[in-house]
Every structure is written in structure tokens, then in C-alpha cells.
């Protein structure tokens, strides 16, 4: 076809842009994306690795067995130690 040179050039530019877009996108996709669905599978482990703050009464009993017995006999038996006292990690960190 004669007189369509400009259209072919425009189309060429379009193809170049589209191909480079696809290539760039390919490298921009994060690792583990799409392994188990449309999300980054590594995120699961990241969320799971957030620091634990609270323990439970068993953690407290490790050191304060006597207090645990007193509490168990009293009216606060169902209330967890950490509800009124500090969470075990902050407590242990402070010494």
C-alpha cells in the first residue's frame, strides 16, 4: 500500500512501547507472586514473623508459681495475668 508509511511508523512505535512494557512488567513482578493465588506468597511468612507480645498464664507460672496458685484460688481465677499486669515480653525485657 502506498501513502501509508506514516501509519506503519506509528504502529512500529506502538509495538516497541508495548513490547518494552511487557518486558518491564515481567521484571517488576515480585518473587513468589502467584504461587498460591493472586498475591505474594512470601507475605504469609512475613506476617507470621511479627513479634509475639502476649504469652499466657503458663508463661507466667514458669516464674511465679506461688502467685499463680493464689490467683487460682481467688475470685480472679478466670482473668489472665497479663490482662492486669504487663504482657510477658515487655515484662521479661524490663527484667
Amino acid at each position, binding site marked *: 500500500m502506498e501513502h*501509508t508509511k*506514516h*501509519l506503519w511508523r*506509528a504502529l512500529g512505535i506502538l509495538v516497541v512501547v508495548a513490547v518494552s512494557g511487557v518486558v518491564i*512488567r515481567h521484571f*517488576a*513482578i515480585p518473587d513468589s507472586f502467584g504461587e498460591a493465588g493472586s498475591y505474594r506468597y512470601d507475605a504469609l511468612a512475613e506476617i507470621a514473623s511479627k513479634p509475639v507480645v502476649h504469652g499466657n498464664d503458663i508463661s507466667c507460672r514458669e516464674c511465679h508459681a506461688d502467685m499463680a496458685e493464689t490467683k487460682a484460688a481467688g475470685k480472679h481465677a478466670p482473668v489472665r495475668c497479663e490482662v492486669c499486669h504487663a504482657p510477658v515480653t515487655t515484662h521479661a525485657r524490663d527484667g
Partner: protein
Amino acid sequence: MEPAITTGYVFPNDLHIMWSLMIVIYPYVTGLVAGAFIVSSLYHVFQQRELRPVARLSMVGSLAFLLVATMPLLAHLGHPERALNIVVTPHFTSAMAAFGMIYTLYLILVIFEIWLVYRKPIIQLARRSRGFKRWFFATLALGVYDTSERAMQVDRRTITVLAGLGIPAACILHGYVGFMFGSVKANPLWSTPLMPIIFLFSAVTSGIAMVIVLYQTLMKFSGKSISGACVQSLAQWLWLFATITATLEILEIVTLAYERSEEWVVVGELITHKIPFSFIGVQMIFGSLIPFLLLGIVVLMRRFLTDPLRNTITFLAAFILLIQVFSMRWNVVIGGQIFSKSMVGFRELYVPRLFEREGIVTALAIMILPFIFLALFNHFLPLYESDQEEAPGAPTET
């Protein structure tokens, strides 16, 4: 953030409006994009010849608003630097994920069509000028200086095809925006299949209105005469689309009210007590009824109107309709967030601040940019055709 003033019971996380002024102007801008494009297609595809004076203006206007359409979104995002995630890892069950693709396709289409329409003036400019300007326009012409009759004919046919493709593209671009709201089942004001249709029709309304305002302003500034036939035709189209839009908007509310379902308890309260000014006052009475009457005069009594009178009435009606469409976006986006998802409580009323990231100044800046672009464009490549010039974008006879 401090706790907000609420009434009734509001879920504790529902205290503040999440989608602000930016998300109001985003559908407003894309509506103008789609609407202006439809006007240019009325000429290129549907051969409404009296619209020839606004064919170029509406097409370039569509591009001007398209170029800023992403800005309100970027201003709104918590992480604008991650915006491209939406094209890198689009999650296709989300309406929003399609945005990247629809936007890009539409942008390519509009730029390609404008380029073909302006190819001859671009080549002429490249030939006339020197230095950087010459280099710039030669690049724009892609180095091909073919303005033979055969080449022009190829261009005209391609333009018609592109304009034809552009109609569904414009409808998808804006219908999708309506779908984004219409598909949120948690929100009784948004969640209706009517929503994309309402958005689409009000988009065309705002597009035609914007073209009327732009055209008359441009002609005044360039000292040219305004084509009465063109304004008359635009006014007729505007009347039609504005009427359908208002009907759909009322239908949605009437259906909700008549069904008397759980949703109406909260939506009814919202309309009558929380946003009566912007909904009943601005959107319905001032924005829909008055232009309906004004345009009715233009359409039904055209024999008795002089050109300046018709132009003025149409300009006024178009200007009011631009406000109406904005208020509709406001009432949908903001109104839909005033009630909590507990359905028994209302949040604080949202008033955007002047200086904040998503504030009034940002919104004004985004809304002014397209006009600066248009003025710049007009400086090099006129947005209107002189009567002697043979129109490269004219519809083909075949």
C-alpha cells in the same frame, strides 16, 4: 486523628470519610473525557456535520482531561509510588485493576486519532519553522511528509474507524468508573446496576456541556463568530442527555424509596437530612430542572430566538449542568460515605480543607491544568478550523 462527631451508632472504624474530594473529581474528569469524545464521534462517525466547528476542540479537550485523570488518584493513594502495582500485578476480580489497561488503550486511541487529524498542520509547521521547533514537529510527523490526496484519504478512513472504536472505549472507560461504585455491595447507595448507566449518561451530559462552554469561550477570545447551527445542535443533544440523566438519577432514588427495604432507612435519612442542599437543591432543582427549562426553550422555540440569545441561554444551561454533574459525583461519592455500614449511624459531614493533600487547592490545580494544556495546544495547532481549510478529519462519504 481525633474521634469525629457522629450521630446514631457508627462502627468504630467508620469515623472518617475514606474517599475524599479527589475521588469526587476523578469520575468528574473521566466523565468529561468520555463525554467530549462522544461529541467528536457525533461528527466523525454519526456525520453530524453542523458539529464540525467543535470536532477538533472536543477531541483535544478529551485528551486534555485524560492527561490529568490519574492525578486525583495519585493524590489520594496512601502509596502513590506503588501506583504501578496496578499494572504489574493486576488482580482482575477487581474493577479497579482494569484501570491501567483501559486508560492506556484509550490514551493510545485518542492520541493516534488526534495525530491523524492534525498531521497536515503538523507537517506544514515543520516545513515552515527552523531549529528546535522544526525538529520537534518533524519528530511529531514521524519524519513522513506525505500530504498527498491519497494519504489524506487513508487518514480520513482511519480516523472514522478510530472514532468508531472510541465510542465503546469511552463508554467502557466511564462505565467502569460507575461499576466501581455500583459493585460495592456493602453500600446501599452505590450498589445498583443503574450506577454505571447513570455515570455514563451524566458523563456525556458533562462532556457536551464542557464543549459548549469551551467553544463559546474560545471563539470569544479568538474574535471569531460562533456558529449558531453548531450551538443549536449541541443544545439539542445536551437536552436529550441531561433529561435521561436526571430521569435515571431520580429513578434510582424512587426505586429505593418505594421498595422500603432496610437501605431506605439510612438512604432516606441521608437525602432528606444530611445532604438535602447538595442533592435536592443543587443536583435536582438547580442543576436538573433549570437547565431542562432553559434548553427546552432553545430546542422548542428555536424559530423565535436570535443567535446571541440562543448562545447565551445554552451557555448558561451548559454551565449549570457542569455544576449539576459535579454535585452528582459529590453526592454519590461523599453521600455514600456519610452513613456508617452499621446502617444506623452517620459520620461527621465532610468539608474539604483548602490546603491539604486532598484539599481544594489540589483539586483546583488539577482542574485548571487541562485548560492550560488546551491553550498551549491552540497556540501551535488551532483548535478550530478556518472555513477555507479542507478538513482532514471530515467524515468520508463512503
